[in-house]
């Protein structure tokens, strides 16, 4: 967490006050919330009234998918189809599965190309199967695993030709890419605090003024009658401070991370183990790939063996994902890009952030050869 966000949050935690109360301390809390809303909105090119605070990215995605689906269906019962990219985060994927299983939704999954890009043309083709049945399009801004940035603006324009609203999960993009809600032409956008150096447990759904969203939690209607629940004033304040700072320092920080990332990728590929980089990558490019994302495929290794060996050497990284019991699984994102299950098992994701240094990259590069050799010896022993 950014130090400025920690101190802002800590200061606020010492102040009592429920932003829904009308008495003096309540009004003071309300003021902090509204000022935070304005600061956040300014930082991401939105109007304050478009910011709906939530408990984080997952809740915002749920509200976007379920709320927009319900509202669109209410307006026109034929709007039952969702056009969603196949490389979404589970917060989106599982909402879609729920809507299909319980709410009569149909889904058209849009596959990415080999670089992990969901093109506007592919979205158009999915819509054109039956434009009048589409309730919503959802495509993430940047993929959390392989780092590929999606052409969301182009996708939004394409969908709007058919009068279809578009949601984007921009959790990974905020603070790392230029994110401007108005300019993006999106109707709904998810952001969260901790990915931008803010606190855990707070996020927001950006809702365009013209967009109808049916509430998914019911109660006091604190947030535009769309989202109920007592607002977490300290977290909201820390969130706004973090986003403001992350956006202000984005250009410099992105350039620094791109340089670190490129050195990591080039050096890893030069080690001679046949390591390749996944997704869209060009040296110096921090626009079409997340600046701090390096996603590698290491042939002949199980990602979880690498993860253990690197962790033991003091390098923290991740692989695909795990089921609830913790069983490593090949990533659905990597598989959707057409990579074989065998190759997908050797996936290794390294994320660089504001605390990452040249020394961290050096530590990774010096630990990698021994880890790859050991992991190769251990591979194939499970099956």
């Amino acid at each position, binding site marked *: 967490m950014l130090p400025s966000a920690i101190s802002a949050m800590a200061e606020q935690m010492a102040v009592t006050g429920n932003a829904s109360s009308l008495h003096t301390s309540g009004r003071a809390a309300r003021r902090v919330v509204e000022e935070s809303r304005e600061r956040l909105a300014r930082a991401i090119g939105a109007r304050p009234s478009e910011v709906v605070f939530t408990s984080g990215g997952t809740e915002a995605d749920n509200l976007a998918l379920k709320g927009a689906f319900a509202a669109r269906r209410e307006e026109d019962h034929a709007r039952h189809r969702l056009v969603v990219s196949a490389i979404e985060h589970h917060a989106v994927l599982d909402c879609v599965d729920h809507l299909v299983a319980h709410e009569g939704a149909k889904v058209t999954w849009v596959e990415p190309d080999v670089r992990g890009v969901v093109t506007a043309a592919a979205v158009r083709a999915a819509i054109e199967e039956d434009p009048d049945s589409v309730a919503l399009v959802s495509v993430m801004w940047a993929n959390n695993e392989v780092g590929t940035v999606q052409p969301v603006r182009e996708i939004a324009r394409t969908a709007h030709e058919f009068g279809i609203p578009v949601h984007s999960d921009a959790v990974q993009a905020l603070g790392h890419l230029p994110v401007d809600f108005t300019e993006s032409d999106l109707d709904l956008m998810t952001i969260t605090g901790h990915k931008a150096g803010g606190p855990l447990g707070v996020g927001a759904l950006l809702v365009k003024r013209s967009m109808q969203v049916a509430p998914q939690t019911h109660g006091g209607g604190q947030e535009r009658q769309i989202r109920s629940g007592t607002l977490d004033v300290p977290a909201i304040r820390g969130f706004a401070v973090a986003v403001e700072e992350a956006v202000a320092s984005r250009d410099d920080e992105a350039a620094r991370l791109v340089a670190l990332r490129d050195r990591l990728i080039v050096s890893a590929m030069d080690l001679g183990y046949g390591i390749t980089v996944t997704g869209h990558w060009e040296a110096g490019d921090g626009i079409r790939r997340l600046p701090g994302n390096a996603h590698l495929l290491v042939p002949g290794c199980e990602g*979880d*063996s690498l*993860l*253990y*060996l690197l*962790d*033991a050497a003091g390098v923290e990284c991740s692989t695909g994902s*795990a*089921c*609830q*019991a*913790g*069983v*490593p699984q090949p990533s659905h994102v990597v598989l959707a890009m057409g990579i074989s299950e065998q190759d997908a098992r050797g996936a290794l994701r390294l994320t660089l952030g504001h605390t990452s240094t040249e020394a961290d990259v050096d530590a990774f590069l010096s630990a990698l050869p021994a880890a790859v050799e*050991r*992991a190769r*010896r*251990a591979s194939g*022993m*499970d*099956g």
Partner: protein
Amino acid sequence: MRVVAAMSGGVDSAVAAARMLDAGHEVVGVHLALSQSAATLRESARGCCTIEDAGDARRVADMLGIPFYVWDMAARFKRDVMDDFVAEYSAGRTPNPCLRCNEKIKFAALLDKAVALGFDAVATGHYAQVVERPDGGRELHRAVDQAKDQSYVLGVLTAEQLSRSFFPLGDTTKPEIRSEARDRGFYVASKPDSHDICFIADGDTRKWLTSRLGEQPGDIVDAASGEVVGSHAGAYAYTVGQRRGLGLPRHTQDGQPRYVVNVDARSNTVVVGTSDLLGVNAITGDHARWCGPAPQGVVAVGAQVRAHGEEVPATAWADGGQVHVRLESRVRGVAPGQSVVLYEGTRVVGSATIGAAALER
């Protein structure tokens, strides 16, 4: 040493991991995912494959401050343990899957992977003791807690496997382990013991086998008269020595209860007889495994023929991959497929899979 602590999510393996850490080893917790599908993970109410168990194991690892990983060995477990289990029953034998799991998974696949990754050994929560001889060799001995002793299901381990195995609980009784777990603040201290077979969630082995092998109706024949006295839905579901679930009239003509005395898979026949037909004293075992060098000539041993059975004085001699065991007294219900484990005092000498058992005079 660098040690993998196999953590099932139960109280025993939790304390075993903690004790390895206390002994100064570098410990990493590993939970084996052995179930095939996520659905089974959710449905399974006990055993070693539930989400709850994985979570419990992780919680203990976090308390100990050790790294924790889940290794997916479901494919190997299915092939080497579950498929073997079905094949054995289908051939009229009664396998012990825990023993097979120790032989093929815990002290083979898991140990091999651990060694490949740079570990020196695997530690588990089994109740058994490893004793190091002055010459550096290692022996497997019964646990101090006789009621919990699990040396029987470890009887398949070779000296080589033992040299990379730790059983930190062997010198302690189960009640003491529970109380130690409480003292260490593990909330799994009061978790019930796992019983039966971990991959058969409801404990109904016959139903589980039937769902895989289908119904195969056949006759139940009386050994004495040769008459058909009943019918069954598949001979594979019966075990020598079994009395319950035969569906025979409560009182036979002679008033004696009937037991399964033989399962003939080839003719799909279950043979029943009176209890006196169950007693055997000569066992031939296949697939002999010796914990150390194979014994030379005829040796005096104690023989145990099932997981919680009594040890019987016997003589034994090795004959290639086979072992011949002559028991000093008759033992009832010796089922082919089970293992005979041989002891010298508390030391495990070796084991074999029971192929045939007979009464010799």
